[in-house]
């Protein structure tokens, strides 16, 4: 039902009624914004989310109308976030440091010292935890970062991520497994260096 409604709106926009784009924006801004907010730094969310809707407008003729506009826009959002990290890596403006800070190492040590999962609950709120996660993701390629964020953090299905990144399912599975293994090895290396 949503797909048909969205297709009708998209058709009207393509005919020149650009103001109707606000209907699609209103309907899907929250979901697209949330996807972007989980993947890029807070200060870049508004810009990247705006970029997603502009890209969606520019390639609206490619929207088939079989699924809701939001599904199609969320794929653009994932690709835009990946492009954001690729751009950051190219300009080296937001490079993550090559090794964790002493505070972050200490945090890992504290977690490792906890015997039961409940004991580590209070450590979740530490700033070091977010720093470690950023550091780990920063060691991955932009594509692997997007994949890990989508599958292991966002809880998306592998086939959904494969469709968004325009990869085969096999390639997505293999890359997800390798990226996760790399992150585990990095965590282990911090643990060993303590």
């Amino acid at each position, binding site marked *: 039902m949503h797909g048909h409604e969205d297709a009708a709106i998209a058709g009207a926009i393509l005919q020149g009624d650009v103001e109707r784009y606000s209907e699609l*924006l209103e309907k899907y801004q929250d979901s697209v914004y949330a996807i972007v907010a989980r993947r890029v730094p807070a200060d870049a969310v508004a810009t990247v989310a705006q970029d997603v809707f502009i890209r969606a407008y520019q390639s609206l003729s490619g929207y088939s109308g079989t699924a809701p506009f939001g599904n199609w826009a969320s794929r653009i959002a994932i690709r835009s976030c990946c492009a954001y990290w690729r751009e950051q890596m190219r300009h080296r403006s937001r490079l993550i440091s090559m090794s964790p800070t002493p505070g972050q190492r200490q945090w890992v040590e504290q*977690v*490792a010292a906890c015997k039961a999962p409940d004991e580590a609950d209070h450590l979740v709120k530490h700033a070091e935890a977010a720093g470690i996660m950023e550091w780990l993701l920063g060691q991955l390629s932009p594509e692997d970062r997007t994949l890990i964020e989508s599958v292991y953090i966002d809880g998306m299905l592998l086939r959904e991520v494969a469709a968004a990144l325009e990869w085969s399912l096999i390639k997505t599975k293999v890359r997800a497994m390798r990226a996760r293994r790399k992150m585990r090895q990095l965590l282990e290396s911090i643990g060993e260096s303590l």
Partner: protein
Amino acid sequence: MKKQDINQLEAILSAVFRAGKDQRPTPEWRVGVMGAVRRCHAAENIAVNFAMIPVKLMWRLAMGSAVAALLCVVLYMTFPAQKSSLIEVPLDSFENAVTVVTQI
């Protein structure tokens, strides 16, 4: 580091990453997006107009040239070479055609 420690770390880090990332779009942001979309739309229209004008003009020029060429060929074939009345040199049939046209 044991495997269960790593698992625990993974779980904590996933929870950390999800936390505090629930930003919502503001009305100002929405106005900004619609403004950008309108600018894109306007730019597309300008691009289309710029592209269309030379194409139309070039088509008209091409059609005009084709008609003129056809007319020349018809005249060339209709009027054979004749002697000029001024000089004793036979005129080229094209010159002849031009002379006839100017006389008309």
